[in-house]
């Protein structure tokens, strides 16, 4: 199919299948569709949009068709994204399965694991969570202690995870466990298991934004079948790192803002107004916004280049760290400026003026961007060592 016909057909299909409600900007957490076994909280338009896209494999357009993907080539994937952006279509399915586990399974999974898990991820049937961090293993993730004892046909898992996003809503977990206590990096394994397995329990943690999207997760004699080991025993660190690269890629996208409207500029104009020259009446804020916009637009070009280079196999393996660092710091400064533009309106915790509290909560949520998925400091360490090849401290 030529690019033009693909674009025309895609445009027509999206026009016919994307419900009007799914073309409105996401305002609150409830607007984000995560799929999963329990779909009782999803609205009908959310379900329709997720299912229609899922059937075509377009929730994961560039995955192979046999695993529930769309089988699209890079150019077609780009076209699909552009056409979705054109009608401001929402993401049909948010999923750690798509952005993190999927790529890792495609690379390290057995044929059975791929056939079993990937199509369910693509269709939003199973919601995944990430069991990496522990109370004493954050930036120094490889010091994790949750143990998995070999019991012949299964592992017996005991320990505690922390900061597990949405563990209380997730159906399955991809989890790092220690299978050899004598070897730090080469004693870790990567396993998958159902959160309904006996012995798994979760406890939500309240955040400064007022939400509690993440949990403490406890494992008490949890039986994990051996076939749920991904990759080689004790070599889970490779899988974990590969997955982190994809996680960082996804998080870096946050620096892009989104949509054709610019809420920062519109918000500032609405609360502050313009002077007799038609310029924002707070010249210092105007200057700060303008400088931010330069960086933001340059970063949009960087993201495009990054994706193009990834697809062509030209990206440095540590580039996602650079992108994650820059994108998340940028996103934080965007929300600082949005708070400055909103003034006292943006401080109201629940009112209409703050979009039901979306403004202050989103501002606070962005502060985690430079912590989750590896802190900014850790990303800078990686760039310094692996790209600039500076000597080890």
């Amino acid at each position, binding site marked *: 199919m030529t690019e033009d016909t693909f674009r025309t057909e895609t445009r027509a299909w999206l026009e016919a299948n994307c419900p009007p409600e799914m073309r409105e900007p996401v305002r609150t957490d409830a607007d984000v569709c995560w799929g999963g076994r329990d779909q009782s909280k999803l609205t009908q338009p959310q379900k329709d949009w997720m299912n229609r896209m899922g059937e075509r494999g377009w929730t994961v357009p560039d995955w192979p068709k046999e695993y529930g993907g769309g089988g699209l080539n890079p150019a077609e994937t780009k076209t699909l994204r552009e056409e979705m952006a054109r009608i401001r279509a929402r993401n049909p399915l948010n999923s750690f399965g798509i952005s993190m586990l999927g790529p890792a399974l495609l690379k390290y999974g057995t044929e059975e694991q791929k056939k079993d898990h990937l199509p369910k991820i693509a269709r939003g049937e199973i919601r995944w969570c990430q069991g990496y961090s522990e109370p004493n293993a954050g930036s120094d993730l490889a010091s994790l202690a949750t143990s998995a004892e070999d019991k012949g046909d299964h592992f017996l898992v005991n320990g505690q995870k922390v900061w597990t996003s949405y563990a209380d809503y997730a159906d399955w977990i991809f989890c790092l466990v220690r299978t050899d206590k004598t070897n730090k990096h080469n004693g870790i394994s990567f396993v998958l298991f159902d959160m309904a397995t006996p012995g798994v329990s979760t406890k939500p943690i309240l955040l400064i934004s007022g939400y509690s999207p993440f949990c403490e997760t406890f494992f008490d004699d949890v039986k994990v079948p051996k076939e749920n080991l991904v990759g080689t025993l004790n070599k889970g660190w490779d899988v974990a790192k590969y997955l982190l690269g994809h996680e960082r890629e996804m998080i870096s996208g946050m620096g892009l803002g989104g949509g054709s409207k610019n809420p920062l500029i519109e918000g500032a104009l609405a609360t502050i107004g313009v002077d007799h020259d038609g310029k924002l009446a707070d010249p210092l804020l105007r200057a700060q916004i303008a400088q931010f916009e330069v960086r933001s637009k340059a970063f949009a070009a960087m993201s495009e280049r*990054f994706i193009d280079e990834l697809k*062509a196999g030209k990206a440095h393996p540590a580039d996602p760290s650079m992108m994650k660092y820059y994108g998340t710091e940028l996103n934080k400064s965007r929300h600082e400026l949005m708070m400055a533009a909103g003034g006292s309106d943006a401080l109201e915790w629940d009112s209409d003026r703050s979009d039901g509290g979306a403004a202050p909560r989103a501002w606070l949520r962005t502060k985690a961007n430079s912590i989750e998925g590896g802190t900014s400091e850790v990303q800078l*360490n990686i760039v310094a060592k692996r790209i600039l090849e500076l000597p080890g401290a």
Partner: protein
Amino acid sequence: MPLYLNEDQQMLRDAAREFVGEQMPVAHMRALRDTNDTTGFSRDHWKQFAEMGFTGILIGEDHGGLGLGHVEAGVVLEEIGRNLAPSPFLSTAVAAVAALKGTGAAERWFPGIVSGDTVAALAIDESAKHRASVALKAERSGNGFKLTGAKQFVTHGHVADLLIVAARTSGSANDTDGVTLFAVPKDAAKLTATPERLADANLAARIEFDGVEVDADAVIGEVDAGRSPLDRLLRAGRTGASAELLGVGGGAMDMTVDYLKQRKQFGVPIGSFQALQHRAAHLYAEMEVARAAVLKAQQLLDAGDPKADAAVSVAKAMTGMATTLAVQEGVQMHGGIGMTDEYDIGFYMKRARVLAELFGDANFHADALATAAGY
């Protein structure tokens, strides 16, 4: 079009890198400065640029050029920047060519540019800060025009064979219309060019037009409608300056990272200190983002995309900010040696400052973006 260089462009980059790196390394500009060279660049090297086809890089094959685009011009400019090579390439082969292209004046001036015989300079600025206003007057006189006024920051203006001059043929200084662009030959009477040495050791002229008479065919494009060729000139010049800045910033960064690996204090390389590692890694990220912004602007410009104007401002502002950081961190991380004339890093700081100012600084372009976005 993917946002990286294709194979042909990479080959061109390798050729430019080898030539500029070998023939015009930083030592070359240092020698010109130390001998108080009054031309400001080497005519021999300019001839060699012509032999390699670089002078005609943006000129169509029908006029004997290579018929390439702004991506390719930028590839050459980045190497010029990396080596701080004094060259009229940006003003002549990029900005002036963009102004002349598609006008009747092209026939007259392109052959000399392609052959390396003609050097062009841009008489655009009238104050110490780049602005859109044009006050220099051009009045009809006989079958031509008489130019009265002054320009400044005209790099190579004192040795140029051709001056591209923005003049006002009607209206007042801040009007968009009423501007006419002229191609003024260097030997025009009543024109005085006074070269001044800049901080980076290059020469830029202040030029007085004391009733300079030119023929009607000196007009580039149409009378009163000079904004169109002037905008072409500025888009090309700004994009080119961004590419050169990228070279300056990248060169400074590479020198600095190298120094971090060599220099030992407290018994270890200073590059093992995390405080410096983080600053170096941050700088790398800024430079990479700037690089993407420049390529985006070049590609949009080559595609004739209406979004090019905004992308050009983003590129000029972003490279201005990133390169300024690169040279400042460069001098600081070199410590005392960074302040010495003997060491090269200081030259990068000076060159970056000049290029950041050329065709509008980061604030000018951020302001332009804000105004275009309606705030």
